[in-house]
């Protein structure tokens, strides 16, 4: 997690060891407790400034990071694409240098370009946290997902997790695959070949084209969002076909004796990857992921900014 500029970063799950992940999850538990208090704040990051640099629109993740920073008593600034200089085509390098000139302790960056957080570390003198870079990674999502799995099912090692959907375009899938492998879980990807990235088995996962096969095996069913663009790229014929083959339909759900924990990074496409009635039934887990998100991000900010200074 230590960067070349002398600051700590969280750019990718691959930078973390299994012990680091577990420590963050444990620490997230304490932070979850803070959010149940009447005064939902601790002074841990008082006087520190955190910038949310969201070059790709996102309401949920940005709000989650903002809330996490504020509950640690940090000051938060928000830059998003609609703001003046970024939309005028200012380079990431110049944006980074401007932010740093204002004296900032950490930048939380989301970009549609893989590698942007990594590049940013070369131009800023502060910590950088990856809130999602293109198709590459979304480390805090994986951490909050593991947190949810552990809280709900009591364990991670040996857990059987099936990830369903557009793996090729999913940074959430990549981060989860790395994280789950590190903590000793087993990952099965469920998708047609046309939605799987090249040589994905070499990431240490199994692959199947059958959702029904995965349903009899998994403890956790992690559904990814499917997008219309993929139809235009001929990745699969139509949303209807996708739902038939890979959707968690009412029929499939009711056929199961043992129901897995159903998770989704949000927002859900009701009627596509998950039937509306099933979504209602499993809603609590998914909204639980949201609360977990704030606690996990508090743990990450606390860890990253608690650097050895002085």
């Amino acid at each position, binding site marked *: 997690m230590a960067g070349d500029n002398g600051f700590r970063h969280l750019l990718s799950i691959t930078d973390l060891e299994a012990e680091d992940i577990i*420590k963050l999850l444990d620490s997230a538990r*304490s932070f979850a407790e803070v959010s149940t*208090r*009447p005064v939902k704040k601790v*002074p841990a990051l008082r006087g520190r400034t955190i910038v949310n640099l969201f070059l790709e629109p996102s309401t949920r993740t940005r709000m989650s990071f903002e809330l996490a920073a504020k509950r640690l008593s940090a000051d938060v600034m928000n830059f998003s694409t609609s703001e003046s200089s970024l939309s005028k085509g200012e380079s990431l390098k110049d944006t980074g240098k401007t932010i740093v000139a204002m004296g900032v302790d950490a930048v939380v960056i989301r970009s549609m370009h893989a590698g942007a957080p990594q590049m940013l570390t070369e131009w800023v003198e502060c910590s950088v946290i990856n809130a999602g870079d293109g198709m590459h990674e979304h480390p805090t999502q994986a951490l909050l997902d593991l947190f949810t799995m552990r809280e709900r099912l009591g364990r991670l090692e040996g857990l059987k997790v099936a990830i369903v959907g557009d793996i090729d375009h999913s940074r959430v899938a990549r981060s989860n695959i790395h994280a789950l492998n590190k903590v000793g879980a087993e990952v099965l990807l469920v998708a047609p070949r046309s939605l799987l990235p090249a040589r994905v088995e070499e990431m240490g996962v199994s692959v199947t084209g059958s959702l029904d096969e995965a349903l009899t095996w998994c403890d956790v069913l992690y559904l990814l969002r499917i997008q219309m663009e993929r139809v235009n790229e001929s990745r699969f014929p139509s949303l209807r076909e996708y739902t038939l083959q890979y959707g968690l339909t009412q029929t499939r759900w009711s056929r199961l004796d043992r129901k897995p924990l159903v998770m989704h990074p949000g927002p859900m496409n009701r009627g596509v990857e998950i039937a509306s009635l099933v979504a209602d039934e499993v809603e609590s887990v998914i909204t639980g992921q949201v609360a977990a998100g704030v606690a996990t991000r508090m743990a990450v900010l606390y860890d990253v900014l*608690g650097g050895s200074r*002085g």
Partner: protein
Amino acid sequence: MEFKARVRVLDAEDIARIVKRISHEILERNKGAGGITLVGIRTRGVFLARRLARTIEGIEGCEVEVGELDISFYRDDYATRGGSASIGVTQIDFDINDKQVVIVDDVLYTGRTIRAAMDALMDFGRPRVIQLAVLVDRGHRELPIRADYVGKNLPTAGDERVKVSLEEVDGVDRVEIGEEE
């Protein structure tokens, strides 16, 4: 770094007597057990708090609430100590508004831990009174903090270490002074 003991200042019997004495002192000062809550500072303060609570319950016959406080997020040395030191969970399931809260810790030293504990407590509510009970006071205060109930006063040098062992955590009850090497 290993701890090398030089002197044993308290053994199991001493500690048991201290717990009894402090329990009586708390009751005396607060004129009974009504409205008293004990909040132990993680880790060993929690077990001491529970022992005090049991003893008080034995004397007065009524239950005393015990809370657990982790002060990691309130430390003032956060920037140098780092954020990944293991954090525990705070559990204060009861209302502390208008109560007499007795903070319980094993060693009172610079006073910074107690300052952090008071800040944390204030985020939970507004106690009527906050008192402090410690097993050992080793001096070298850096803040104007004092204990209301002290098990033993132990003058120490700055480079010495006071090691408190409790049965629940360490398998044995004793307090030693020694060095890190």
